[in-house]
Protein backbone atom coordinates (compact mmCIF):
# COMPACT_ATOMS: atom_id res chain seq x y z
CA UNK A 1 0.00 0.00 0.00
CA UNK A 2 1.26 3.46 -0.83
CA UNK A 3 0.11 5.95 1.77
CA UNK A 4 0.12 9.11 -0.26
CA UNK A 5 -1.71 11.74 1.74
CA UNK A 6 -1.54 10.33 5.21
CA UNK A 7 0.88 12.73 6.80
CA UNK A 8 -0.33 16.31 6.44
CA UNK A 9 0.57 17.40 9.96
CA UNK A 10 3.98 15.78 9.77
CA UNK A 11 4.55 17.50 6.48
CA UNK A 12 3.72 20.89 7.95
CA UNK A 13 5.93 20.47 11.04
CA UNK A 14 8.97 18.94 9.40
CA UNK A 15 8.65 20.65 6.08
CA UNK A 16 8.42 24.10 7.59
CA UNK A 17 12.09 23.95 8.53
CA UNK A 18 13.17 22.27 5.31
CA UNK A 19 11.28 24.80 3.24
CA UNK A 20 13.53 27.51 4.60
CA UNK A 21 16.46 25.88 2.86
CA UNK A 22 15.41 26.95 -0.65
CA UNK A 23 17.29 24.00 -2.11
CA UNK A 24 18.00 23.86 -5.82
CA UNK A 25 15.51 21.80 -7.78
CA UNK A 26 17.53 18.66 -8.48
CA UNK A 27 16.11 15.17 -8.55
CA UNK A 28 17.83 12.62 -6.28
CA UNK A 29 19.25 10.14 -8.73
CA UNK A 30 18.40 11.68 -12.08
CA UNK A 31 19.67 14.48 -14.27
CA UNK A 32 18.61 17.96 -13.13
CA UNK A 33 15.12 18.90 -14.27
CA UNK A 34 15.13 21.93 -16.52
CA UNK A 35 13.55 25.13 -15.30
CA UNK A 36 10.84 25.18 -17.98
CA UNK A 37 9.60 21.72 -16.93
CA UNK A 38 9.65 22.73 -13.29
CA UNK A 39 7.62 25.83 -14.02
CA UNK A 40 5.13 23.85 -16.14
CA UNK A 41 4.75 21.29 -13.34
CA UNK A 42 4.30 23.94 -10.69
CA UNK A 43 1.66 25.61 -12.80
CA UNK A 44 -0.14 22.29 -13.20
CA UNK A 45 0.13 21.62 -9.46
CA UNK A 46 -1.43 25.00 -8.71
CA UNK A 47 -4.72 23.51 -9.91
CA UNK A 48 -4.44 20.80 -7.24
CA UNK A 49 -3.54 23.33 -4.53
CA UNK A 50 -6.75 25.20 -5.23
CA UNK A 51 -8.37 22.52 -3.09
CA UNK A 52 -5.47 20.53 -1.56
CA UNK A 53 -3.93 23.28 0.56
CA UNK A 54 -4.33 24.71 4.06
CA UNK A 55 -5.78 27.89 2.56
CA UNK A 56 -8.49 25.88 0.79
CA UNK A 57 -9.36 24.04 4.00
CA UNK A 58 -9.82 27.39 5.72
CA UNK A 59 -11.71 28.94 2.82
CA UNK A 60 -13.15 26.16 0.60
CA UNK A 61 -13.33 27.16 -3.06
CA UNK A 62 -16.44 24.99 -3.56
CA UNK A 63 -19.38 24.30 -1.33
CA UNK A 64 -19.50 20.57 -2.02
CA UNK A 65 -16.01 19.66 -0.78
CA UNK A 66 -15.69 16.96 1.90
CA UNK A 67 -13.61 19.01 4.33
CA UNK A 68 -12.84 16.13 6.68
CA UNK A 69 -11.14 14.27 3.82
CA UNK A 70 -9.53 17.41 2.46
CA UNK A 71 -7.91 18.09 5.83
CA UNK A 72 -6.08 14.78 5.51
CA UNK A 73 -4.96 15.33 1.96
CA UNK A 74 -3.54 18.80 1.73
CA UNK A 75 0.02 19.65 0.79
CA UNK A 76 1.84 22.92 1.31
CA UNK A 77 3.69 24.14 -1.78
CA UNK A 78 6.25 25.86 0.44
CA UNK A 79 7.11 22.44 1.89
CA UNK A 80 6.58 20.27 -1.17
CA UNK A 81 8.45 22.42 -3.69
CA UNK A 82 11.90 22.25 -2.03
CA UNK A 83 11.52 18.50 -1.33
CA UNK A 84 13.11 15.89 -3.59
CA UNK A 85 9.85 15.35 -5.49
CA UNK A 86 8.95 19.03 -5.54
CA UNK A 87 9.96 19.41 -9.17
CA UNK A 88 7.31 16.94 -10.27
CA UNK A 89 3.72 17.21 -11.40
CA UNK A 90 1.38 15.76 -8.71
CA UNK A 91 -0.19 13.60 -11.42
CA UNK A 92 3.06 11.80 -12.16
CA UNK A 93 2.39 9.73 -9.03
CA UNK A 94 -1.32 10.34 -8.54
CA UNK A 95 -2.95 8.53 -11.46
CA UNK A 96 -3.29 11.18 -14.12
CA UNK A 97 -6.53 9.94 -15.69
CA UNK A 98 -8.52 10.05 -12.49
CA UNK A 99 -8.09 13.72 -11.70
CA UNK A 100 -9.91 15.41 -14.49
CA UNK A 101 -13.10 16.13 -12.62
CA UNK A 102 -14.61 16.52 -9.14
CA UNK A 103 -15.48 14.37 -7.30
CA UNK A 104 -12.40 12.44 -8.46
CA UNK A 105 -12.90 8.90 -9.69
CA UNK A 106 -12.75 6.40 -6.83
CA UNK A 107 -9.61 4.73 -8.24
CA UNK A 108 -7.79 8.03 -8.06
CA UNK A 109 -8.13 8.15 -4.30
CA UNK A 110 -6.44 4.81 -3.76
CA UNK A 111 -4.08 4.44 -6.70
CA UNK A 112 -0.65 5.93 -6.81
CA UNK A 113 2.25 4.97 -9.01
CA UNK A 114 4.68 2.62 -7.28
CA UNK A 115 8.03 4.17 -6.33
CA UNK A 116 9.74 1.52 -8.46
CA UNK A 117 8.31 3.19 -11.55
CA UNK A 118 11.07 5.80 -11.24
CA UNK A 119 13.39 4.21 -8.69
CA UNK A 120 13.69 0.77 -10.28
CA UNK A 121 17.46 0.32 -9.98
CA UNK A 122 17.65 1.60 -6.43
CA UNK A 123 14.66 -0.48 -5.42
CA UNK A 124 16.27 -3.62 -6.80
CA UNK A 125 19.42 -2.92 -4.80
CA UNK A 126 17.56 -2.09 -1.58
CA UNK A 127 14.96 -4.82 -1.63
CA UNK A 128 17.15 -7.60 -0.16
CA UNK A 129 18.24 -5.18 2.59
CA UNK A 130 14.64 -4.26 3.37
CA UNK A 131 13.64 -7.95 3.33
CA UNK A 132 16.24 -8.62 6.03
CA UNK A 133 14.99 -5.63 8.01
CA UNK A 134 13.00 -5.86 11.23
CA UNK A 135 10.24 -4.04 9.33
CA UNK A 136 9.91 -6.96 6.91
CA UNK A 137 10.75 -9.89 9.15
CA UNK A 138 8.24 -9.22 11.91
CA UNK A 139 4.99 -11.02 11.31
CA UNK A 140 2.41 -9.17 9.25
CA UNK A 141 4.53 -6.06 8.82
CA UNK A 142 6.02 -6.26 5.35
CA UNK A 143 2.72 -5.71 3.53
CA UNK A 144 2.00 -2.58 5.53
CA UNK A 145 5.28 -0.94 4.60
CA UNK A 146 6.06 1.21 1.60
CA UNK A 147 8.93 3.62 0.99
CA UNK A 148 6.60 6.42 2.09
CA UNK A 149 6.08 4.84 5.51
CA UNK A 150 9.53 6.05 6.52
CA UNK A 151 10.42 8.52 3.73
CA UNK A 152 7.73 11.15 3.48
CA UNK A 153 7.61 11.68 -0.29
CA UNK A 154 6.07 15.14 0.00
CA UNK A 155 8.64 16.45 2.46
CA UNK A 156 11.94 14.59 2.51
CA UNK A 157 15.17 15.84 1.05
CA UNK A 158 18.05 13.41 0.52
CA UNK A 159 21.13 13.69 2.70
CA UNK A 160 23.40 14.79 -0.14
CA UNK A 161 21.27 17.90 -0.73
CA UNK A 162 20.32 18.55 2.87
CA UNK A 163 24.00 18.46 4.02
CA UNK A 164 23.40 20.08 7.46
CA UNK A 165 23.66 17.15 9.93
CA UNK A 166 21.18 18.79 12.32
CA UNK A 167 18.50 18.91 9.60
CA UNK A 168 19.30 15.37 8.41
CA UNK A 169 18.93 14.08 11.98
CA UNK A 170 15.63 15.93 12.48
CA UNK A 171 14.21 14.64 9.22
CA UNK A 172 15.35 11.02 9.47
CA UNK A 173 14.61 10.53 13.16
CA UNK A 174 11.17 11.96 12.59
CA UNK A 175 10.54 9.08 10.21
CA UNK A 176 11.33 6.58 12.99
CA UNK A 177 9.82 8.40 15.95
CA UNK A 178 6.55 9.06 14.19
CA UNK A 179 5.68 5.43 14.90
CA UNK A 180 8.11 4.42 17.63
CA UNK A 181 7.14 7.34 19.83
CA UNK A 182 3.39 7.20 19.23
CA UNK A 183 1.01 4.57 20.57
CA UNK A 184 -1.55 5.29 17.86
CA UNK A 185 0.85 5.08 14.94
CA UNK A 186 2.69 2.07 16.37
CA UNK A 187 -0.61 0.24 16.84
CA UNK A 188 -1.36 0.80 13.16
CA UNK A 189 1.76 -1.14 12.17
CA UNK A 190 2.23 -3.34 15.25
CA UNK A 191 3.44 -6.84 14.33
CA UNK A 192 1.35 -9.87 15.26
CA UNK A 193 2.21 -11.60 18.53
CA UNK A 194 -0.14 -14.37 19.57
CA UNK A 195 1.38 -14.59 23.03
CA UNK A 196 0.23 -11.09 23.89
CA UNK A 197 -3.26 -9.97 24.81
CA UNK A 198 -4.83 -8.41 21.74
CA UNK A 199 -2.45 -10.41 19.51
CA UNK A 200 -0.32 -7.38 18.71
CA UNK A 201 3.08 -6.29 19.90
CA UNK A 202 3.03 -3.33 22.32
CA UNK A 203 5.21 -0.33 21.60
CA UNK A 204 8.44 -0.62 23.60
CA UNK A 205 9.13 2.53 25.59
CA UNK A 206 12.02 4.31 23.90
CA UNK A 207 13.53 5.68 27.12
CA UNK A 208 13.45 2.26 28.78
CA UNK A 209 15.04 0.31 25.93
CA UNK A 210 17.75 2.95 25.59
CA UNK A 211 18.38 3.02 29.34
CA UNK A 212 21.88 1.58 28.83
CA UNK A 213 22.88 4.50 26.58
CA UNK A 214 24.43 7.41 28.52
CA UNK A 215 22.95 10.82 27.57
CA UNK A 216 20.36 9.17 25.29
CA UNK A 217 18.55 12.43 24.55
CA UNK A 218 21.77 14.16 23.52
CA UNK A 219 22.35 11.29 21.07
CA UNK A 220 18.88 11.63 19.57
CA UNK A 221 19.49 15.29 18.83
CA UNK A 222 22.92 14.70 17.35
CA UNK A 223 22.70 11.41 15.46
CA UNK A 224 20.08 9.34 13.67
CA UNK A 225 18.48 6.15 14.97
CA UNK A 226 19.87 4.44 11.85
CA UNK A 227 23.51 5.17 12.82
CA UNK A 228 23.18 2.25 15.28
CA UNK A 229 20.13 0.46 13.88
CA UNK A 230 21.67 -0.40 10.48
CA UNK A 231 24.68 -2.62 9.75
CA UNK A 232 28.06 -1.12 8.89
CA UNK A 233 28.58 -0.45 5.18
CA UNK A 234 31.75 0.19 3.20
CA UNK A 235 33.06 3.75 3.02
CA UNK A 236 31.25 5.88 0.44
CA UNK A 237 28.32 3.46 0.18
CA UNK A 238 24.74 4.38 0.94
CA UNK A 239 23.41 3.32 4.33
CA UNK A 240 21.71 -0.07 4.43
CA UNK A 241 17.91 -0.34 4.53
CA UNK A 242 18.20 -3.34 6.84
CA UNK A 243 16.84 -1.85 10.05
CA UNK A 244 18.23 -3.81 13.01
CA UNK A 245 16.30 -4.56 16.18
CA UNK A 246 17.69 -3.81 19.62
CA UNK A 247 19.49 -7.15 19.89
CA UNK A 248 21.38 -6.64 16.64
CA UNK A 249 21.89 -2.86 16.79
CA UNK A 250 25.32 -1.36 17.42
CA UNK A 251 26.10 -1.14 21.13
CA UNK A 252 29.82 -0.51 20.99
CA UNK A 253 30.24 3.18 21.82
CA UNK A 254 33.69 3.17 20.20
CA UNK A 255 32.11 2.61 16.78
CA UNK A 256 31.52 6.37 16.85
CA UNK A 257 33.56 7.54 19.86
CA UNK A 258 37.05 6.90 18.48
CA UNK A 259 39.40 8.57 16.04
CA UNK A 260 38.23 6.20 13.30
CA UNK A 261 34.58 7.10 13.95
CA UNK A 262 31.98 5.35 11.80
CA UNK A 263 30.09 8.66 11.74
CA UNK A 264 32.40 9.45 8.83
CA UNK A 265 30.70 6.78 6.73
CA UNK A 266 27.24 7.53 8.08
CA UNK A 267 25.82 10.94 9.07
CA UNK A 268 28.88 12.82 7.81
CA UNK A 269 29.57 10.75 4.70
CA UNK A 270 28.90 13.64 2.33
CA UNK A 271 30.78 16.21 4.42
CA UNK A 272 33.83 14.09 5.12
CA UNK A 273 35.17 14.71 1.62
CA UNK A 274 35.73 18.31 2.71
CA UNK A 275 37.69 17.31 5.84
CA UNK A 276 40.53 19.80 6.32
CA UNK A 277 41.54 19.16 9.93
CA UNK A 278 40.26 22.65 10.80
CA UNK A 279 42.32 24.20 13.65
CA UNK A 280 44.28 20.93 13.72
CA UNK A 281 41.38 18.77 14.92
CA UNK A 282 40.87 15.19 13.72
CA UNK A 283 37.33 14.72 12.33
CA UNK A 284 36.82 18.49 12.25
CA UNK A 285 33.79 18.06 9.95
CA UNK A 286 32.09 16.26 12.82
CA UNK A 287 33.32 18.88 15.27
CA UNK A 288 31.79 21.63 13.16
CA UNK A 289 28.47 20.25 14.34
CA UNK A 290 29.09 18.11 17.42
CA UNK A 291 31.91 17.59 19.91
CA UNK A 292 32.13 13.78 20.01
CA UNK A 293 34.37 12.60 22.86
CA UNK A 294 37.02 10.21 21.56
CA UNK A 295 36.46 11.18 17.91
CA UNK A 296 37.06 14.93 17.67
CA UNK A 297 40.60 15.17 18.99
CA UNK A 298 43.54 17.49 18.57
CA UNK A 299 46.61 15.24 18.08
CA UNK A 300 49.07 18.07 18.80
CA UNK A 301 47.34 19.02 22.05
CA UNK A 302 47.07 15.34 23.03
CA UNK A 303 50.78 14.80 22.43
CA UNK A 304 51.62 17.94 24.42
CA UNK A 305 49.49 16.82 27.38
CA UNK A 306 50.87 13.24 27.28
CA UNK A 307 54.39 14.70 27.08
CA UNK A 308 53.81 17.00 30.08
CA UNK A 309 52.30 14.21 32.20
CA UNK A 310 55.19 11.88 31.30
CA UNK A 311 57.71 14.65 32.07
CA UNK A 312 56.08 15.13 35.49
CA UNK A 313 56.25 11.39 36.18
CA UNK A 314 59.86 11.11 35.02
CA UNK A 315 60.73 14.29 36.92
CA UNK A 316 59.47 13.01 40.26
CA UNK A 317 60.99 9.60 39.57
CA UNK A 318 64.41 11.10 38.82
CA UNK A 319 64.13 13.40 41.85
CA UNK A 320 63.28 10.41 44.06
CA UNK A 321 66.17 8.31 42.75
CA UNK A 322 68.63 11.20 43.20
CA UNK A 323 67.31 11.80 46.72
CA UNK A 324 67.79 8.16 47.60
CA UNK A 325 71.31 8.11 46.15
CA UNK A 326 72.21 11.36 47.97
CA UNK A 327 70.84 9.97 51.24
CA UNK A 328 72.85 6.77 50.79
CA UNK A 329 76.01 8.79 50.14
CA UNK A 330 75.38 10.93 53.23
CA UNK A 331 74.86 7.86 55.38
CA UNK A 332 78.06 6.36 53.99
CA UNK A 333 79.99 9.59 54.65
CA UNK A 334 78.65 9.74 58.23
CA UNK A 335 79.63 6.12 58.83
CA UNK A 336 83.25 6.90 57.87
Amino acid at each position, binding site marked *: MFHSFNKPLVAVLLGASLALLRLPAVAADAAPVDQATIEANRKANAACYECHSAAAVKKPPRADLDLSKLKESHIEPAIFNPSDHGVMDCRQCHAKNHYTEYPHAEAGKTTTSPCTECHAAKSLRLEPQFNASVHAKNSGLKEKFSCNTCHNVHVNVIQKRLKDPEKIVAQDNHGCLECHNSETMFARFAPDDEKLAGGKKKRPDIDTIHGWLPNAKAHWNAVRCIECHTPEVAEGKMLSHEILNKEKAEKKCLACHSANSSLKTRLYRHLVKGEQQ*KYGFTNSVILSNSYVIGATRHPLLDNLIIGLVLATLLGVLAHGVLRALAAMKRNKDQAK
Partner: protein
Amino acid sequence: MSERTYLLPLWIRLWHWTNALLIIVLTVTGVSLHFADPKLPLVEFSLAARIHDIAGLALVAAYAFFALANIVTGNWWQYVPKPPGVIDRCLKQARWYVWGIFRGEPHPFPVTLQNNFNTLQSLIYWAIMYLAMPLLLLTGLIFLFPEFAPDRLFGMDGLLPVAVLHYLTGAAIVMFMIAHIYLGSTGNTVGAMYKTMITGWHEH
Protein backbone atom coordinates in the same frame (compact mmCIF):
# COMPACT_ATOMS: atom_id res chain seq x y z
CA MET B 1 59.19 11.08 72.34
CA SER B 2 59.37 13.95 69.84
CA GLU B 3 57.12 17.02 70.01
CA ARG B 4 53.96 16.79 67.95
CA THR B 5 51.10 19.08 66.86
CA TYR B 6 47.51 18.19 65.98
CA LEU B 7 47.66 19.86 62.57
CA LEU B 8 44.82 18.49 60.47
CA PRO B 9 41.29 18.26 61.90
CA LEU B 10 39.10 15.31 60.89
CA TRP B 11 37.05 17.28 58.32
CA ILE B 12 40.15 18.20 56.31
CA ARG B 13 41.41 14.62 56.31
CA LEU B 14 38.03 13.19 55.33
CA TRP B 15 37.65 15.75 52.58
CA HIS B 16 41.24 15.18 51.37
CA TRP B 17 40.88 11.42 50.98
CA THR B 18 37.41 11.70 49.42
CA ASN B 19 38.82 14.25 47.00
CA ALA B 20 41.83 12.02 46.27
CA LEU B 21 39.71 8.95 45.59
CA LEU B 22 37.32 10.87 43.33
CA ILE B 23 40.14 12.48 41.36
CA ILE B 24 41.79 9.09 40.76
CA VAL B 25 38.46 7.63 39.57
CA LEU B 26 37.83 10.68 37.38
CA THR B 27 41.34 10.50 35.92
CA VAL B 28 41.01 6.83 34.95
CA THR B 29 37.52 7.26 33.47
CA GLY B 30 38.38 10.63 31.89
CA VAL B 31 41.41 9.12 30.12
CA SER B 32 39.21 6.20 28.99
CA LEU B 33 36.73 8.63 27.44
CA HIS B 34 39.11 11.12 25.86
CA PHE B 35 41.57 8.56 24.48
CA ALA B 36 38.84 6.02 23.58
CA ASP B 37 40.41 3.45 21.27
CA PRO B 38 39.50 -0.22 20.76
CA LYS B 39 43.22 -1.09 20.86
CA LEU B 40 43.83 0.39 24.33
CA PRO B 41 43.05 -1.37 27.63
CA LEU B 42 40.67 1.29 28.95
CA VAL B 43 37.42 1.24 30.94
CA GLU B 44 34.44 0.36 28.66
CA PHE B 45 33.10 3.64 27.26
CA SER B 46 29.49 3.66 28.51
CA LEU B 47 30.63 2.45 31.96
CA ALA B 48 33.36 5.11 32.04
CA ALA B 49 30.79 7.77 31.04
CA ARG B 50 28.42 6.78 33.85
CA ILE B 51 31.14 6.57 36.51
CA HIS B 52 32.64 9.88 35.34
CA ASP B 53 29.24 11.60 35.61
CA ILE B 54 28.54 10.28 39.11
CA ALA B 55 32.08 10.83 40.45
CA GLY B 56 32.08 14.30 38.85
CA LEU B 57 28.90 15.28 40.68
CA ALA B 58 30.36 13.86 43.90
CA LEU B 59 33.46 16.01 43.35
CA VAL B 60 31.25 19.10 42.94
CA ALA B 61 29.63 18.25 46.30
CA ALA B 62 33.04 17.61 47.91
CA TYR B 63 34.33 20.93 46.58
CA ALA B 64 31.27 22.80 47.85
CA PHE B 65 31.89 21.26 51.28
CA PHE B 66 35.59 22.19 51.09
CA ALA B 67 34.91 25.80 50.09
CA LEU B 68 32.25 26.23 52.76
CA ALA B 69 34.22 24.54 55.53
CA ASN B 70 37.26 26.65 54.64
CA ILE B 71 35.19 29.81 55.14
CA VAL B 72 33.54 28.62 58.36
CA THR B 73 36.75 27.39 60.01
CA GLY B 74 39.01 30.15 58.63
CA ASN B 75 41.25 27.50 57.02
CA TRP B 76 41.16 29.52 53.76
CA TRP B 77 43.81 31.78 55.30
CA GLN B 78 46.35 28.96 54.89
CA TYR B 79 46.03 29.32 51.10
CA VAL B 80 46.93 33.02 51.09
CA PRO B 81 50.61 33.79 50.52
CA LYS B 82 51.46 36.52 53.04
CA PRO B 83 53.60 39.43 51.88
CA PRO B 84 56.21 40.77 52.23
CA GLY B 85 58.87 38.45 50.85
CA VAL B 86 56.57 36.06 48.97
CA ILE B 87 58.94 35.69 46.00
CA ASP B 88 62.02 35.33 48.23
CA ARG B 89 60.34 32.60 50.28
CA CYS B 90 59.21 30.79 47.11
CA LEU B 91 62.73 30.90 45.69
CA LYS B 92 64.17 29.65 48.98
CA GLN B 93 61.69 26.75 48.97
CA ALA B 94 62.38 25.95 45.30
CA ARG B 95 66.13 25.99 45.98
CA TRP B 96 65.57 23.45 48.75
CA TYR B 97 63.68 21.12 46.37
CA VAL B 98 66.37 21.28 43.68
CA TRP B 99 69.44 21.44 45.92
CA GLY B 100 69.04 21.49 49.70
CA ILE B 101 66.97 18.30 49.87
CA PHE B 102 69.83 16.31 48.29
CA ARG B 103 72.28 17.66 50.86
CA GLY B 104 70.07 16.74 53.77
CA GLU B 105 69.38 20.37 54.69
CA PRO B 106 66.42 20.92 57.03
CA HIS B 107 63.10 22.29 55.68
CA PRO B 108 63.51 26.05 55.17
CA PHE B 109 60.04 26.74 56.63
CA PRO B 110 59.10 24.20 59.31
CA VAL B 111 55.39 23.45 59.66
CA THR B 112 53.50 25.34 62.38
CA LEU B 113 49.83 25.41 63.30
CA GLN B 114 49.63 28.97 61.92
CA ASN B 115 51.61 28.21 58.74
CA ASN B 116 50.80 24.69 57.63
CA PHE B 117 51.87 25.41 54.02
CA ASN B 118 55.13 26.96 52.86
CA THR B 119 54.68 29.97 50.57
CA LEU B 120 55.31 28.08 47.31
CA GLN B 121 52.92 25.39 48.46
CA SER B 122 50.17 27.86 49.37
CA LEU B 123 50.51 29.59 45.96
CA ILE B 124 50.25 26.33 44.03
CA TYR B 125 47.46 24.95 46.25
CA TRP B 126 45.59 28.23 45.78
CA ALA B 127 45.93 28.03 41.98
CA ILE B 128 44.78 24.41 41.99
CA MET B 129 41.93 24.67 44.48
CA TYR B 130 40.60 28.14 43.67
CA LEU B 131 41.42 28.44 39.95
CA ALA B 132 41.80 25.06 38.24
CA MET B 133 39.21 23.14 40.30
CA PRO B 134 36.32 25.64 39.86
CA LEU B 135 37.09 25.78 36.11
CA LEU B 136 37.24 22.00 35.91
CA LEU B 137 33.98 21.58 37.81
CA LEU B 138 32.17 24.33 35.94
CA THR B 139 33.17 22.95 32.53
CA GLY B 140 32.30 19.45 33.74
CA LEU B 141 28.84 20.64 34.75
CA ILE B 142 28.33 22.29 31.35
CA PHE B 143 29.42 19.02 29.75
CA LEU B 144 26.72 17.32 31.80
CA PHE B 145 24.13 19.95 30.83
CA PRO B 146 25.27 20.98 27.33
CA GLU B 147 22.20 23.16 26.82
CA PHE B 148 24.13 25.81 28.81
CA ALA B 149 27.05 25.74 26.35
CA PRO B 150 27.14 28.23 23.50
CA ASP B 151 25.48 26.78 20.41
CA ARG B 152 28.34 27.47 18.01
CA LEU B 153 31.71 29.22 18.24
CA PHE B 154 34.29 29.91 15.49
CA GLY B 155 32.33 27.64 13.10
CA MET B 156 32.61 24.73 15.55
CA ASP B 157 30.32 23.15 18.14
CA GLY B 158 30.03 25.58 21.07
CA LEU B 159 30.92 22.73 23.40
CA LEU B 160 34.49 22.71 22.03
CA PRO B 161 35.95 25.48 24.26
CA VAL B 162 34.20 23.90 27.26
CA ALA B 163 35.69 20.51 26.39
CA VAL B 164 39.19 21.88 25.80
CA LEU B 165 39.15 23.84 29.06
CA HIS B 166 37.91 20.73 30.91
CA TYR B 167 40.71 18.69 29.34
CA LEU B 168 43.43 21.26 30.15
CA THR B 169 42.35 21.87 33.75
CA GLY B 170 41.93 18.12 34.24
CA ALA B 171 45.45 17.53 32.90
CA ALA B 172 46.82 20.28 35.18
CA ILE B 173 45.22 18.59 38.19
CA VAL B 174 46.58 15.18 37.18
CA MET B 175 50.09 16.65 36.94
CA PHE B 176 49.60 18.36 40.29
CA MET B 177 48.40 15.06 41.77
CA ILE B 178 51.55 13.22 40.59
CA ALA B 179 53.83 15.88 42.05
CA HIS B 180 51.68 16.16 45.20
CA ILE B 181 51.83 12.42 45.91
CA TYR B 182 55.60 12.41 45.43
CA LEU B 183 56.24 15.57 47.48
CA GLY B 184 54.30 13.91 50.29
CA SER B 185 57.46 11.84 50.77
CA THR B 186 59.64 14.89 51.47
CA GLY B 187 58.76 15.16 55.18
CA ASN B 188 61.11 14.50 58.10
CA THR B 189 60.92 10.86 57.07
CA VAL B 190 59.59 9.42 53.78
CA GLY B 191 56.30 8.34 55.39
CA ALA B 192 55.88 11.20 57.90
CA MET B 193 53.57 13.42 55.85
CA TYR B 194 51.38 10.54 54.62
CA LYS B 195 50.98 9.56 58.27
CA THR B 196 50.01 13.13 59.21
CA MET B 197 47.37 13.11 56.48
CA ILE B 198 45.85 10.00 58.10
CA THR B 199 46.21 10.74 61.82
CA GLY B 200 46.20 14.54 61.76
CA TRP B 201 49.32 14.68 64.00
CA HIS B 202 52.51 16.28 62.76
CA GLU B 203 55.75 15.03 64.28
CA HIS B 204 58.35 17.82 64.58
